[in-house]
């Protein structure tokens, strides 16, 4: 669908978007207009949440618009008090192929958990 707004060349399917002006303007579109917007990842902090949580992704032409799209797509039901967005291609992720060397070694090291302490009742968020 994105082509209709940014690259709507010849009388596409949607009269409202590509109609109105005909033919002559297409030359202006030939240079450097991207057909689709880059992907962003969205992180929202809930009202009682302590940290931002990944909630999904969206497409946007720039960072500011991505933030607004995130507000419109992911906080419609009164969920959030803070939003982070970042370009998906700025995220470096671990690979499933590396799962064993990455994560298996911690599987038997129970002593890394602070389970040998009594946590007082009035210490929150533990």
């Amino acid at each position: 669908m994105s082509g209709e707004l940014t690259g709507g060349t010849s009388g596409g399917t949607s009269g409202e978007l590509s109609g109105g002006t005909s033919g002559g303007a297409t030359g202006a579109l030939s240079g450097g207009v991207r057909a689709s917007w880059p992907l962003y990842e969205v992180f929202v902090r809930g009202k009682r949440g302590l940290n931002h949580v990944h909630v999904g992704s969206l497409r946007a032409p720039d960072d500011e618009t991505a933030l607004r799209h995130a507000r419109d797509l992911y906080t419609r039901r009164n969920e959030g008090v803070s939003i982070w967005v970042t370009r998906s291609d700025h995220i470096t992720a671990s690979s499933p192929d590396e799962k064993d060397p990455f994560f298996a070694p911690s599987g038997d090291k129970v002593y890394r958990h602070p389970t040998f302490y009594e946590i007082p009742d009035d210490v929150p968020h533990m």
Partner: protein
Amino acid sequence: MSHDNPYEALGGDGDARWAFGTGFTDPLAGVDTTAPAGVDGGDLAAYCLMLGDDALVMSHRLQEWCTRAPELEEEVALANIALDLLGQARLLLARAGQADGGGRSEDDLAFLRDAPDFRNVRLVEAANGDFARSMARLLVFAVWRLALLDRLAGSRDPVLAAVAAKGVKEVAYHRDYAAGWVVRLGDGTAYSRERMKEGLAAVWPLVAELFVPHEVELRLARAGVAVDPSQLRAEFDAVLDQVLDAARLTRPDAARPGEADAAQEGPADAAPAGAGGRDGRHGTELDEVLSVMQSVARALPGATW
């Protein structure tokens, strides 16, 4: 707290919920709904219809972008704005039905009135046109309505004040959204700029009517209940010029600075008092809106869903 499931982590209170928002508020909670002393119920109802119909018809035009928007993200954004305005319309129409003593519900007023009984300005009933034109119209509408609601939040009528206070936050976002697109398209490619200029020019003849006060508005403004729309022009011009500057565009009537008042009477925006939407004078475009908007309610009288 488990963060395996984002919904659980966001909700945080352990409730089983299909959606994770909590803490919803009622904008009219604790508000006294009796009409203020010395205010004519008929006038109050008429005024609520004006502002309510503006929001209702504008909402419908925005809803028409559903399944037609250039991007999925924009479609949701436009639907959100439409829903904000529908919420304002519901409160205002309910208030109108209550104030005139006729006992009509918000649905009666929305779905069972004919075009001549609608009191919206003609700006909101005009067809969407292309995306640029829709953004020009939304910008004009939001700049004007925000200036209006901002003042209405001080109304002597507690319901109007509460509706306005809620609406200010909503319309501030609508203005921001529309301004973003006007700047992006106006200061974009040569082609987008041309489309944006055409959109603004198409909307402009409908602008002057926004500032022509109706006698009901003047009476209620003197009583401290309503806002005299002629008082909004300076703020409207200042805000709009700021956006248009950033978009490298100019107001279609902007010949020379300081002539804003004279321009109101110019041929481009001929809207003589007494002949506008506030008096029930509408174009055929409102008939088109109503034939769609009211079709279900009229086909199935009294149906609930």
